[in-house]
């Protein structure tokens, strides 16, 4: 390669890169929909942009990185310090916040092989002064090194930018909590010095890496060149724009705009399956023998990608990489990064559950609620995990019908039913809308943030109408596209769309452990006179609720009780014999459905079907154990 060639190539790259950033953000044609306002922003404001180069030592599981960070002070105040997250230091020693927090997370949170990140250079471009020498790695009496304060020699005025040069070395842990290695498989997430997000009021949203929490950062453009051994298959955030090979290694360059993180994976045994779905180049990286799981993942994406694009605004990126981790690396599964998600379900489990579809659709949903709507995952996990789980159950029900969780013979169980039952159990323990690290356990976080939020939103959708609710939540997603909303923004969006009462319900449900239980207390048939039914509402939430009235002549009547008061005596026609509250199962939040009915003596239906089925299956069971 001669000098002219190199010069021309550099020039070509200079011209090409901006074009590719724009191309990587190409918006596929959205489905025809006139229900929403035009998108307020097609691109994010590039606040923190990284140009990185990373070399993977696959045998030592070390990533050596260099690069630059271009950051702009978007706040109205002068900034005198930076906060940098070194998430991998969560696995450095037992004194990290992550490892010393006494809560469980997934299966195993203590990696067999430790991981850490060591920054060797952090300097303003053009300066030889290494700012890292003055960095405050720890707080007093705290050994955690995931949240670092870096004083600046000169303050950065509002609107001014800063270019920083970085060099670091990341030792990956054995796979744990979304990142690490297993054999030659490498899932490389949270691997570089990551600038915290500067909030509009000029304070840094920084935090140590908590076990139950995730991440938060500003949007920017990422230009990352990965140097890995030849033979490794790589998947990464963004579009592959250049690749070359030399001396037994390969260099792959990925670019992506409008994102707030960059993750990648490398394994020498990945198989690749590609497909264009809804204008997006989807690449599935998977181990051998998982073809049928990949087929199911692709089927899920074929439905969910256009579905979410229609509901929440178009998927704005040209690529999506789906990583199916190999056996032994399941801890890397079920995670979202910009344009890259990880799935994973065991081979045998996939035969009886819809987990593979659930995980795939959930992680895809995060492309909107986390990726495109860039909320603070640590402070308001409701906004990413909660809304995503709602979106997931909604998508799965739209796709698979009422058997979105399980379908065995006559048993068809919807995911929302499972989440309703699951989340009821912990609703009085802790509020839903609190920071992730405030939860007592991952079980509480899962039941409340994922399950309860999904059930609250599903109840609002059913009570106020799915079409209207779609417009509200879709409007929220579009209005907050490439922004950083807080929980208050969601409340206000619901208030604007559904009214003050719905907003109050949502606040109470998420912030005050709100609950509700409708009770059909008693009825009077009335005889020749008018009848009545006494209805009660327990708890702190209230919804309008359907009331079904049944009369002795077989006729039925449906009314709506506004549910504002704690009780009401509803006057009815004569010969009232039965009353059912919420017959169409709209109020999933109802804490006890077994008290939703009341009948006049002799008008109950008994339990004949249960007895018949139970007798049959018990007899078969007896046959199985009878000698």
């Amino acid at each position, binding site marked *: 390669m001669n000098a002219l060639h190199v010069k021309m190539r550099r020039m070509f790259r200079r011209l090409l890169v901006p074009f590719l950033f724009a191309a990587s953000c190409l918006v596929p044609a959205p489905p025809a929909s006139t229900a929403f306002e035009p998108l307020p922003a097609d691109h994010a404001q590039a606040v923190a942009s990284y140009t990185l180069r990373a070399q993977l030592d696959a045998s030592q599981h070390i990533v050596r990185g260099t690069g630059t960070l271009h950051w702009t002070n978007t706040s109205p105040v002068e900034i005198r310090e930076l906060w940098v997250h070194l998430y991998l230091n969560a696995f450095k020693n037992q004194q990290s916040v992550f490892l010393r927090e006494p809560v469980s997370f997934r299966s195993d949170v203590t990696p067999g092989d430790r991981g850490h990140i060591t920054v060797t250079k952090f300097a303003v471009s053009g300066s030889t002064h290494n700012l890292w020498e003055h960095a405050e790695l720890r707080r007093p009496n705290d050994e955690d090194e995931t949240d670092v304060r870096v004083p600046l020699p000169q303050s950065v005025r509002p609107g001014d930018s800063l270019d920083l040069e970085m060099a670091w070395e990341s030792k990956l842990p054995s796979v744990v909590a979304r990142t690490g290695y297993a054999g030659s498989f490498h899932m490389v997430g949270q691997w570089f010095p990551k600038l915290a997000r500067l909030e509009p009021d000029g304070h840094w949203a920084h935090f140590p890496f908590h076990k139950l929490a995730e991440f938060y950062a500003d949007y920017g453009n990422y230009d990352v060149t990965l140097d890995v051994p030849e033979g490794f298959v790589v998947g990464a955030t963004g579009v592959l724009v250049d690749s070359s090979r030399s001396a037994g290694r390969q260099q792959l360059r990925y670019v992506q705009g409008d994102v707030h993180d960059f993750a990648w994976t490398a394994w020498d045994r990945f198989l690749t399956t590609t497909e264009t779905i809804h204008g997006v180049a989807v690449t599935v990286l998977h181990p051998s023998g998982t073809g049928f799981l990949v087929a199911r993942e692709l089927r899920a994406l074929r439905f969910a990608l256009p579905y979410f694009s229609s509901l929440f605004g178009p998927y704005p990126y040209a690529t999506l990489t789906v990583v199916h981790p190999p*056996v032994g690396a399941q801890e890397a599964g079920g995670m979202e990064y910009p344009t890259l998600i990880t799935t994973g379900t065991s081979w045998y489990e996939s035969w009886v559950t819809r987990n593979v579809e659930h995980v795939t659709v959930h992680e895809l949903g995060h492309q909107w609620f986390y990726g495109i709507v860039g909320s603070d995952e640590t402070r308001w996990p409701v906004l990413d995990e909660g809304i995503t789980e709602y979106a997931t159950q909604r998508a799965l029900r739209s796709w698979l019908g009422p058997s979105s969780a399980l379908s065995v013979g006559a048993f068809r169980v*919807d995911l929302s039913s499972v989440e309703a039952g699951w989340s009821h159990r912990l609703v009085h323990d802790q509020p839903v809308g609190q920071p992730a690290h405030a939860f007592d356990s991952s079980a509480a976080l899962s039941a409340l943030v994922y399950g309860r939020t999904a059930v609250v939103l599903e109840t609002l959708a059913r009570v106020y109408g799915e079409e209207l609710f779609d417009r509200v939540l879709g409007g929220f997603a579009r209005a907050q596209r490439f922004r950083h909303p807080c929980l208050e923004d969601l409340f206000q969006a619901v208030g604007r769309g559904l009214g003050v009462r719905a907003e109050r319900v949502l606040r109470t449900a998420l912030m005050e452990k709100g609950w509700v239980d409708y009770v059909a207390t008693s009825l009077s048939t009335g005889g020749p006179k008018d009848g009545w039914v006494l209805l009660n509402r327990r708890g702190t939430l209230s919804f309008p609720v359907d009331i079904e009235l049944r009369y002795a002549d077989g006729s039925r009547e449906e009314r709506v009780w506004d549910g504002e008061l704690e009780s009401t005596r509803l006057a009815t026609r004569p010969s009232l014999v039965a009353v059912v509250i919420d017959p169409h199962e709209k109020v999933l939040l109802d804490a006890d459905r077994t008290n939703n009915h009341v009948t006049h003596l002799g008008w109950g239906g008994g339990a004949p079907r249960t007895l018949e089925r139970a*007798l049959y299956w018990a007899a078969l069971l007896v046959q199985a154990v009878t000698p």
Partner: protein
Amino acid sequence: MKEDNGFALVAIRAMRARRCYWAIGVVWLWEVLLGLVIAWPVAAIVRVLYGGHPDGDGPLWNAGGLPLVDLLLRQGPAAAGVQATLAVVLTIASIGGLVPLGMLLVSLAYGTRDGTLLLRVALGRSLDFFSSLAVLLVLVSLLEALFLFAAVGGGIWLVGALIRSAGEPWAYGLGAVFLGTAACLVAVAGVVHDLGRAAAVCFRVGAIAALRIGLEAFRQSRGTALWSWAWRSGAGLVPIAVGAGVCEHLGGQGGTALLVVAAIHQLAVLIRVALRASWLSRALRMVSALGARP
């Protein structure tokens, strides 16, 4: 083998299930009664919670499963009671079941001069064989448990050893082959067990001698024995599948539909008892054909 009261082994060709329909009915009744002991508390719980609903327990069967999941998750203590009942009943079924089994074998193998055999007589005679059948049950169950334990342990080891190098489908596939092979061995043990039971009833011998005769009968015609057992076992799945399909279509919340569903379900249970009786009669004929005496 003849006795003064005329109670004697029937001719080999007469050892047929169709000759003993009433004994088949008694076994079916036994299974249904035990089933009822399990099912009644379940239905009682549901009746308390949903019996007053105008549609009864109908909402529990609605697509989507919201009331069903709600009920299952909030009935933890009650479920513990049902589980305890289940454990007791299944224990009774596995040990006490030797009595109706013995009665069925006696009915298949024996008759009186006038060709009739009273239920009371068959039941009484079955108690004579209870100890032999019980010892056989313990011995063969231990053997089967050993097979299964080794198979499950070996399968888990095999999967663990292969899963990273060979991948999940191959590892689990080989594990399944391993487990399937062990299941076949358990099935063979079960066939020999039934032949031993037949020998114990035919020749009134102890468990060890009966097992020896059962093994000999199996050795002499293993293909016939396995096929005779296998096709009846396979056929026993058909009424379950047909019943499931029909019942899913009918639903059967009440009235005629519920009666039809119940009839189909109980017919399925009865057919399975009849197929079991048919296999046991085949086992009796195979053992009797040996013409052996201990």
